[in-house]
């Protein structure tokens, strides 16, 4: 593995947080993982506002797992915000949601998502997904440099 790219998991459902963490661990992903639970918090974090100003403690992620249904600001709002900021243009955003509505898929790509994944129902399938993710995004993918 190359540098330890930080992963941000944006998810408000604690069960899904637990299962995702478990799957990533099962897949052997060792990267630093930040979990944030609502859209406003995510934007504050990415903008480095307030308590998140310290980039040593709160580094910018290279990859964001983004749920669409979030409190306060939706996943689409977060995605739109990220893509409106040129300094974050290399950030990989993977939508991870339980919705397979064609309209959601379409909107996500239109707003600049790099990938769209539907949460699989079983632990095994989730772990398969985490493994595939690791293989592709963490081992083969070249990242743009993350601004400090």
């Amino acid at each position, binding site marked *: 593995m190359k540098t330890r790219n930080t992963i941000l998991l944006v998810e408000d459902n604690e069960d899904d947080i*637990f299962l995702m963490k478990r799957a990533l661990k099962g897949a052997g992903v060792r990267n630093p993982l930040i979990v944030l639970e609502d859209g406003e918090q995510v934007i504050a974090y990415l903008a480095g506002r307030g308590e998140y100003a310290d980039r040593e403690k709160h580094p910018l992620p290279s990859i964001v797992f983004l749920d669409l249904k979030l409190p306060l600001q939706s996943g689409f709002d977060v995605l739109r915000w990220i893509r409106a900021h040129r300094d974050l243009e290399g950030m990989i955003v993977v939508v991870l*949601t339980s919705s397979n509505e064609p309209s959601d898929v379409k909107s996500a790509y239109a707003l600049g998502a790099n990938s769209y994944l539907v949460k699989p*129902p079983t632990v095994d399938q989730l772990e398969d997904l985490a493994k595939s993710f690791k293989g592709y995004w963490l081992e083969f993918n070249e990242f743009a440099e993350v601004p400090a």
Partner: protein
Amino acid sequence: MGDTELRKRNAEEALREGASRFQLALAAGHLGDWSWDATTDVVHLGPKACEIFGLAENCLITRSNLREFLYAQDAVRTRAIVDKALAARSDFDLEFRIHRGRKLAWVAARGRGTYSANGAVTGMVGVILDITERKEADEIRSRLAAVVESSDDAIISMGLDTIITTWNRGAERIFGYTAAEAVGQSVTMLIPNHAEDEEPRILKRLLGGERIEHYETVRQRKDGTLVDVSLSISPILDASGMIVGASKISRDISEKKRSEQALRKAQAQLREHAEKLEELVAERTFRLSETIQELESFSYSVSHDMRSPLRAMQGYSDALLEDYAAQLDPTARDYLERIRRAAHRMDLLIQDVLAYSKVAKGEFDLKPFNPQAVITDVLQTYPTLEAARENIRVHGPLPEVLAHEAYLTQIISNLLSNAVKFVPLGTAPNIQISTRKENGMIRLSIKDNGIGIAPEHQKHIFQIFGRVYSTKKYEGTGIGLAIAKKAAERMGGSIGVNSEAGKGSEFFVYLKEAQ
């Protein structure tokens, strides 16, 4: 020269002079002279008289010959008048027609009888005049007068002093005044108070040589009521081309005005109704789109929110089974497996309900599809079908149908899944797919060797949750056929079944044929 001779000469001279003066006077009056001698029946015609009859000058002709010139219809009357005058020793004055060449000519004749001492008629003398032109002019005039008189429009003539000179029956009908009442009055009596200045303006335009056509205005009747009229006015010129008056044609357009008004009113009403209808449609459409939006957000939240607890149930069961396998006894593992299966079934149910609502409400276009392609696709994507692929036989080639791909996929996947699923234990499925044309539709048939459906159950199977067998025996949500039915109907087709318990089933779908 003796006195007598001189007198005689003077008398002869005087006579000659008199005769020549007489001929001059006749010529000036375009008159022809004639005389008839009763004893010889010879008629002597003067030069002009010869011309009137179309005869050569100095011709000799008898009265009997002349009768042949007379127009047959006038013969009896003419003869009667002449005979009567001769008997009464009075003058006669008559007009009759004669054949002159190929044409008829009108002639006026005046004359009187000459008598012997004993009173016998010895002849007649008189003059004739060609009155053909006058008669023709009279006829045209009377025809015109008849036209004017019988017109529905008011036709009035007036002098520049606005005094009415003629007044037809149409004018009487429209304005209520008789000709006797109107002639001699000023036309201003027809003009209502508020339009007093109209007549002077019309006169001014007229004097400028202008014709006024279809000028719509209002006139007042004798009884004071108003009438809508359309006026056409042209100047009347005298022989020297001076304007001496005006002819006015007034058409009663009150009926037209009334229908115009009625039409305008009807149009306004129609507009109003159309506006109301549009408002209503807009309101209903708004409410409907609100409902649809609510439904959409409902199904969205079903797909998103209701499935996430299921994932948690499955996830934690899996996690327990994996992470704590050592601490779990077989009963605990069995319970966890049951939780997982129940969660899985619930997930399938939610997915099917969503699929059903999508089939029921979605918008789509029908496009030509080959069912074969969809069947191949379904066989490759559905794991349960992949195993039974060798038992499914398609009797191709299949004709193209007009369909929506997702709906056609729903139908074929549900029917094939059922065909594979509902077989007696230990029997290999045997499925035949075929098509045939029927009444302009394509009938797609899927025949199986399965357990069949008793007739009393056949009605229920297409209803949502219309299950015949318990989930324990044959797993499923009970929504598949309802989805297939809805999909077929939304594509303008239908679905049905032929089956008997224990003897297999044939499901058939009618689909539109692609042209």
